[in-house]
């Protein structure tokens, strides 16, 4: 969907999932699948008299992100309190950063390249995740909220872009690229549920800016934005205009709903967090982290083209998700046929992942599986068709390729006696075709097709072809006499 004058900006929240503890206390951050409120302490519960202490690694990880996005790291950063009364934060404020009222976030500026277009980054900051709310009984009738604070205080980085995207698809591409960068940095695992969330700002020509909140996954971003474009377009076309407001994405009904919030930015009464001293970041520390930076997707893509001679398009697809790039390289290390491997990963593995909508980490095969199949195909043990069949089978069972080949009896048949017997059988069953083939040798191809069909493509094609030819010339000799 593309509408002229569409401007989209994103505010992405990513958990620094690589950290073992929360942002300001030593509670474990490993909250997924755990009983409620087992990782809480007086600090993240906001008890009077407690003091937050900043996680050093969180700052280093966030600096890595800033460097990867080409942002300018602040020489001195401050934390601010964002005040609001809502039970997801027990302190009644969130420790965050602010770029106004004298506030200095971790980093400003930056740039992400997508599909030949640049998306500018406005700021990158550190803040704490709020707790998780659920409702007693049904969401409609419930009078009380149940809160689990295990997530409260988990380190988040907030990345805010300029409104440089012009379609929902570009927003998705930006998020995919960002996720790949974070995964290459090893700071955030985007496959973990709820580890990356985003809010979107969207405006159309002739309308005001609308903020859409509560988008829980990247898949939903495209949907939510497409819905908003349709809604805003229709309002503008009917001359009703679009006013500035905040809307909520309802994932179930797939619509946005007006929030009619009475809280404006000034109502958060941001002020410097008195419990945290300023943080000075020297250029030397920045350089030190720069030296430790791992390879990023853009560089890896270029290396794939150079080192493995892949087509730029293939290298682009493979480096979109770190786990896929890793899988490809894992295979290439085991078997020096990178182009074949890239074709199989893109042509067979990715469609499987897409169809089943699973993550590559949920795949039941390792690079060795694919490499074994390709080796068996290359040495003639199995045909290309069989190789495909074996791959599909290993994908659904996780069995090693040789096991599948044994079990299914799909090994290529090179036994001359067996092939001969099958050839005779096919010729007997198709007497008319044999007659034609004696006149026109091209009809032999038809017989070959029948033979392969009968044997489910398992015969060695070269041997089978020779056998048909030989049998036909024997027949033509006996027919002459």
């Amino acid at each position: 969907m593309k509408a002229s004058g569409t401007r989209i900006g994103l505010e992405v929240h990513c958990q620094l999932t690589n950290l073992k503890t929360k942002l300001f206390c030593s509670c474990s951050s490993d909250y997924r699948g755990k009983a409620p409120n087992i990782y809480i302490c007086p600090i993240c519960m906001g008890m009077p008299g407690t003091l937050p202490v900043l996680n050093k690694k969180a700052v280093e990880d966030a600096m890595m992100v800033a460097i990867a996005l080409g942002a300018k790291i602040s020489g001195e950063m401050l934390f601010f309190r964002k005040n609001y009364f809502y039970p997801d934060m027990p302190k009644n404020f969130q420790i965050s950063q602010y770029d106004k009222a004298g506030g200095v976030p971790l980093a400003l500026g930056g740039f992400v390249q997508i599909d030949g277009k640049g998306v500018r980054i406005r700021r990158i900051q550190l803040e704490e995740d709020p707790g998780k709310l659920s409702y007693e009984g049904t969401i409609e009738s419930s009078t009380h909220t149940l809160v689990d604070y295990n997530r409260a205080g988990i380190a988040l980085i907030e990345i805010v872009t300029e409104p440089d995207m012009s379609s929902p698809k570009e927003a998705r591409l930006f998020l995919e690229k960002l996720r790949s960068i974070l995964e290459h940095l090893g700071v955030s695992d985007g496959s973990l549920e709820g580890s990356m969330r985003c809010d979107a700002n969207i405006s159309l020509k002739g309308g005001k800016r609308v903020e859409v909140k509560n988008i829980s996954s990247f898949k939903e971003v495209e949907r939510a934005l497409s819905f908003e474009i349709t809604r805003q377009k229709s309002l503008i076309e009917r001359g009703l205009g679009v006013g500035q407001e905040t809307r909520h994405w309802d994932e179930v009904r797939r619509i946005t709903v007006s929030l009619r919030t009475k809280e404006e930015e000034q109502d958060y009464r941001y002020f410097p967090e008195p419990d945290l001293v300023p943080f000075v970041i020297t250029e030397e520390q920045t350089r030190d982290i720069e030296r430790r930076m791992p390879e990023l997707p853009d560089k890896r893509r270029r290396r794939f083209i150079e080192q493995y001679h892949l087509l730029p398009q293939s290298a682009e697809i493979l480096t979109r998700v770190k786990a896929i790039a890793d899988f490809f390289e894992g295979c290439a290390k085991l078997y020096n046929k990178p182009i074949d491997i890239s074709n199989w990963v893109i042509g067979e593995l990715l469609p499987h992942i897409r169809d089943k909508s699973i993550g590559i980490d949920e795949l039941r095969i390792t690079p060795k599986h694919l490499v074994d199949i390709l080796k068996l195909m290359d040495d003639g043990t199995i045909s290309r068709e069989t190789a495909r069949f074996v791959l599909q089978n290993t994908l659904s069972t996780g069995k090693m390729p040789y096991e599948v080949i044994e079990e299914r009896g799909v090994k290529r048949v090179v036994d001359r006696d067996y092939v001969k017997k099958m050839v005779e059988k096919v010729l007997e069953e198709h007497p008319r075709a044999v007659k034609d083939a004696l006149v026109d040798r091209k009809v032999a191809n038809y017989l070959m097709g029948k033979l392969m069909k009968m044997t489910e493509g398992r015969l060695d094609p070269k041997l089978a072809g020779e056998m048909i030819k030989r049998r036909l010339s024997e027949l033509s000799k006996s027919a002459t006499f």
Partner: protein
Amino acid sequence: MKGKEGISRKEIEHIAWLARVELSKKELEVFSKQLNEILAYFAKIDEVDTEGIPPSHHVLDFSNVFREDEVESSMSEESLRNVPQTKGRFVRAPRMT
């Protein structure tokens, strides 16, 4: 802040809403008066000329207080005991809209 003009009744109602506190008519009256007195008192600070002086966010003269990323045992049971209302292991709070 409004300084000498003081704080209006409407602003107090808004602040009360932000804090999710319901005020009676009488309380509104009392707080209007008290808050305006406090603001008038602090308005004295506005008289100081701060031109060209950098803002001071902190009074302590040190920076960079960090901790290492190492898990220490949470005090979850003690912390939960301080919660006014629980349901199972959940903290129970009034529904807010």
